[in-house]
């Protein structure tokens, strides 16, 4: 049965990627080009403004690729049950396979782009040492966090389509409120506390520890991330369990 489940997830991932890139000429290359384009814009607009940040491009790119992974995943997951409604209506399969495979396909395209970005980051002055390996567990943790948030959005979105729309509205705001293009040091002291309430801040912090500073991720931020992820995952599963039987009547 385990192998059947994995075939299923494999085919759904394949399906998602096919659907995503089927009608595009550049296909997978977009997972590299999309962040690259952002990077160019940021470099152009902000590098003078934030000239106190050393290796500004590297600083931005390390946050940016993870942000795009996060934002794409949440967008896809918020629609996952709705998009797969025809399958949910005719097959008695655990509904969790749909968001899982959605996250899986986003992870695949993220990793494809990430490999290329490693070269770019090396060129931009990334430190090469064993600390870089910390990025792997961070990717796993970040994926679980993203999945949890996406699952909450996806489950609620079945009942209230406003959730998806609201998410799309808030998405850019969250982008600018997360320290991606700038460091926290430019934020006035009295607002710093609020910035730290944003879970993404802590994730970007440990990601930058590894990719930008070349150190091991700072322990207390790692702990924050672990706790946030665990809580989010718990809430997501609770909401999903509570709502899954009602999906069918609202799809």
């Amino acid at each position, binding site marked *: 049965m385990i192998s059947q489940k994995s075939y299923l997830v494999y085919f759904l991932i394949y399906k998602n990627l096919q659907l995503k890139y089927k009608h595009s000429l550049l296909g997978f290359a977009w997972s590299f080009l999309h962040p690259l384009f952002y990077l160019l814009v940021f470099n152009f607009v902000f590098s003078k403004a934030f000239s106190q940040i050393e290796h500004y491009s590297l600083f931005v790119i390390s946050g940016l690729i993870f942000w795009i992974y996060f934002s794409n995943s949440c967008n896809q997951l918020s629609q996952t049950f709705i998009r797969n409604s025809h399958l949910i209506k*005719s097959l008695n399969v655990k509904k969790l396979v749909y968001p899982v495979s959605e996250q899986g396909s986003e992870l695949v395209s993220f990793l494809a782009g990430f490999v290329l970005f490693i070269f770019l980051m090396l060129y931009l002055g990334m430190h090469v040492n064993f600390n870089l390996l910390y990025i792997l567990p961070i990717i796993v943790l970040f994926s679980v966090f993203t999945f949890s948030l996406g699952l909450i959005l996806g489950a609620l979105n079945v009942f209230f389509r406003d959730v998806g729309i609201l998410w799309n509205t808030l998405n850019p705001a969250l982008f600018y409120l997360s320290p991606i293009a700038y460091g926290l040091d430019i934020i006035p002291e009295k607002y710093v506390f609020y910035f730290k309430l944003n879970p993404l801040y802590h994730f970007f912090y440990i990601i930058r520890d590894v990719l930008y500073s070349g150190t091991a991720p700072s322990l207390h931020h790692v702990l924050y991330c672990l706790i946030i992820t665990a809580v989010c995952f718990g809430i997501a599963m609770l909401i999903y369990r509570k709502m899954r*039987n009602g999906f069918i*009547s609202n799809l």
Partner: protein
Amino acid sequence: MEKSVIQLNDVSVSYLHNKRGIYSIKDFMLKGAFLSPFEHKQVLHNINLEVYKGQTLGILGKNGEGKSTLLRTIAGIIVPDTGTCKVTIEISPVLALGAGLELELTGLENIKIYMALSGRYQKNTIASLIDTVAAFSELSMEQLKMPVKMYSTGMLARLAFSTVMATQPNLLMIDEVLAVGDKGFQEKCKKRIHEVKNAGATVLFVSHNPEEVMEVCERGICLKEGKIICDSTSQDAVKEYYNLFN
């Protein structure tokens, strides 16, 4: 004594409806924004049904009287509000028009996904399964390599029916798939249904074509407003079905 494979005791199913919808924000403001946005719409009322192994059961009723909901409940896709639904044979997916097919993908990809979804994908048998589907559906390899969105409704039905049939299900649930096939394919399907029935499979058959129901099924039920109003031979159920319109 025949073995009962499907047992529904006092099953009631209702849908939770978001009655607000997005029609207008004015409605929302005027009609009590504080009331629950959901309402229950009862679809099936206290259904009692027992189906035996190897039986062919036709399900008749007007549109929207709960036929598809009944099939989905048996398939385990819908969880009943009250009552129990016990199915003791392996459940296969409900065969409904276009269900489970991904329009952007090709026929071949759809067959593979379907096999994976129904837990029957095996690397060494997939090629022969595809051959079986191709042979039965009479779709050429060229057609199977086309995205399904380019298929006609009849071709979709051929693909769906052949794919499900290739897995040799023990419980076959058909929701008005035959209606769109051409005459030749309909005959072929009916023949195939008889074959699986003779091999011991149980068949649940939803159709709006009474002759077809009488031809395929020995037993019939007729649904009205979510209740079974007749449970007898398919001939009697068909008579009851005609009465609905008088």
